């Protein structure tokens, strides 16, 4: 089986990249496709996860879905790939379905498992904003699989990657990038393994210092509930829940969030949930692994210092 794995690489092999290659390797021989200014040493590192052949197109230096889709489609045709694997991140959401539609190939959007042991090609995905799981069968010879970040444990599978630089005419980009406004160096929420989140219980945006301090100690990404984003205490991109970002970290710590069903829908993919709330009746406790009935203003700083002590003793 010939598998094309598409990834974006910047200054290191992120977990999302490792997951994507691991998934591809489980399906067959991996040809990795990437673009931009990536060092040879990083490209060679993809061999640690099973990439045998690495194609790099250095002439694309911005994320343009039209050029990237054409790049992927050309490679699929040239190498007769049966599977195309990519990450269901912002780029994946723009490119994956476009490639699938162009090839008239079935697309798995947000795979959370390796294929089932079955005569058909069946993969699990999250549906109803994480309230249920669907088993999706793909009926076409070519299959496009976009995997949800933090779903597949990366596995080393050492091989020597052979690098080929490619240069193709991909047409002219019709979308012009004017400016990039970076959101900081933190790990984006959908890929974060540790998330610290807070809601209206924090009483005002000026009180977020204790949330950020805990996140810094843990190396976690910060998030918030919908009301807090709606009233402008926190930026919209931090809103996790059914109509915000869906996350699946290893650890989700929620302070001063009652746990409405819409919020739970976006976070119930978390492996471990810690809930801090003054109200023992808060519905969130039913979805929690660990509960602390207490005031976030006291509990958060205490937890931060406990984490700091723990880290310094390691």
């Amino acid at each position, binding site marked *: 089986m010939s598998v094309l794995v598409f990834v974006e690489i910047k200054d290191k092999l992120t977990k999302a990249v490792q997951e994507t290659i691991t998934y591809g390797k489980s399906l067959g021989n991996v040809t990795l496709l990437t673009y931009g200014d990536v060092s040879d040493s990083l490209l060679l590192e993809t061999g640690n996860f099973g990439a045998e052949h690495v194609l790099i197109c250095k002439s694309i230096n911005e*994320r343009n879905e*039209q050029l990237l889709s054409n790049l992927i489609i050309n490679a699929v045709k040239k190498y007769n790939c049966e599977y195309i694997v990519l990450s269901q991140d912002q780029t994946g*959401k723009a490119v994956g379905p476009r490639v699938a539609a162009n090839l008239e190939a079935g697309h*798995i959007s*947000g795979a959370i498992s390796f294929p089932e042991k079955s005569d058909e090609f069946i993969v699990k995905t999250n549906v109803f904003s994480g309230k249920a799981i669907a088993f999706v069968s793909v009926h076409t010879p070519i299959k496009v699989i976009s995997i949800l970040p933090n779903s597949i444990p990366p596995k080393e599978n050492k091989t020597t990657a052979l690098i080929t630089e490619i240069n193709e005419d991909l047409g002219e980009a019709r979308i012009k990038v004017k400016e990039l406004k970076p959101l900081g160096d933190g790990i984006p929420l959908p890929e974060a393994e540790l998330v610290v989140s807070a809601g209206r219980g924090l009483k005002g945006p000026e009180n977020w210092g204790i949330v950020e301090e805990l996140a810094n100690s843990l190396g976690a990404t910060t998030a918030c509930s919908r009301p807090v984003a709606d009233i402008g205490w926190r930026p919209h*991109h931090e809103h996790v829940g059914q109509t915000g970002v869906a996350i699946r970290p290893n*650890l989700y710590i929620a302070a001063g969030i009652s746990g409405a069903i819409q919020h739970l829908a976006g976070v119930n993919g978390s492996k471990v949930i810690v809930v801090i709330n003054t109200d023992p009746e808060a519905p969130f406790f039913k979805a929690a*692994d660990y*509960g602390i009935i*207490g005031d976030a203003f006291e509990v958060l700083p205490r937890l931060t210092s406990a984490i700091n002590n723990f880290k310094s003793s390691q």
Partner: protein
Amino acid sequence: MKILVCISKVPDTTSKINFVDNNSKFDQNGVQYIVNPYDEWYALVRALELVESNGGTVTTITVGNSSDDPTIRKALAIGANDAVRINANPTDSYFVAKQIADYAANEDYDIIMTGKETIDYNGSQIGSMLSALLEMPFVSLASKLETEGSKAVLERDVQGGLEVVEVDFPFVLSASKGMAEQRIPNMRGIMAARTKPLKVIEPVEQKALTSVVKFELPNPKTGCKYVDPENMEELVELLHNESKVI
């Protein structure tokens, strides 16, 4: 300005999710349907705002059967000029995209909008597929949209930041939070919606490329372990040794 907004019907966000027929079908019993929030709050409302200030029309399009009509009327009550329903059971994303593309191909829309995903299947696929089928540029996860003549400036969510991009009409976008504020339809809008045109057209033939074989509910949590708020060392110990997440 001529804008097409793709509208999907989804279970209300507070719905309990259950399945019937050996977990092969969604249990519609007692479920209230709404317009998919991303389609309504962001795509549709921004389309209306643009047309209100620049002139033009907003048409909604839905792939579904007559049970979709109440949610389509809701979109008309919020302010869309007219609606199209392609009379078919939406089997998979490609099927839906194909139907919409087939209709839109002859209509000269300046902007085609979708929500960034539906809250039932969360596929985030239709916009991207439409852009492939219609050979148009696609601005995904857009949180801001301004137009100037026949071009648009948008802000979109990319890895690690927000990108400001410029694109000429026609193009496809998927709308995410921030693009507009939710609008509640007023009585006049609701009355007017009853008589606004809702055109029903028959689908083009297209096989589904994927199908859902069955559904499953996630394992429920086994119970919450309470930790003394004075003793955060214990919580750290549990997170490290018991659940091994730090």
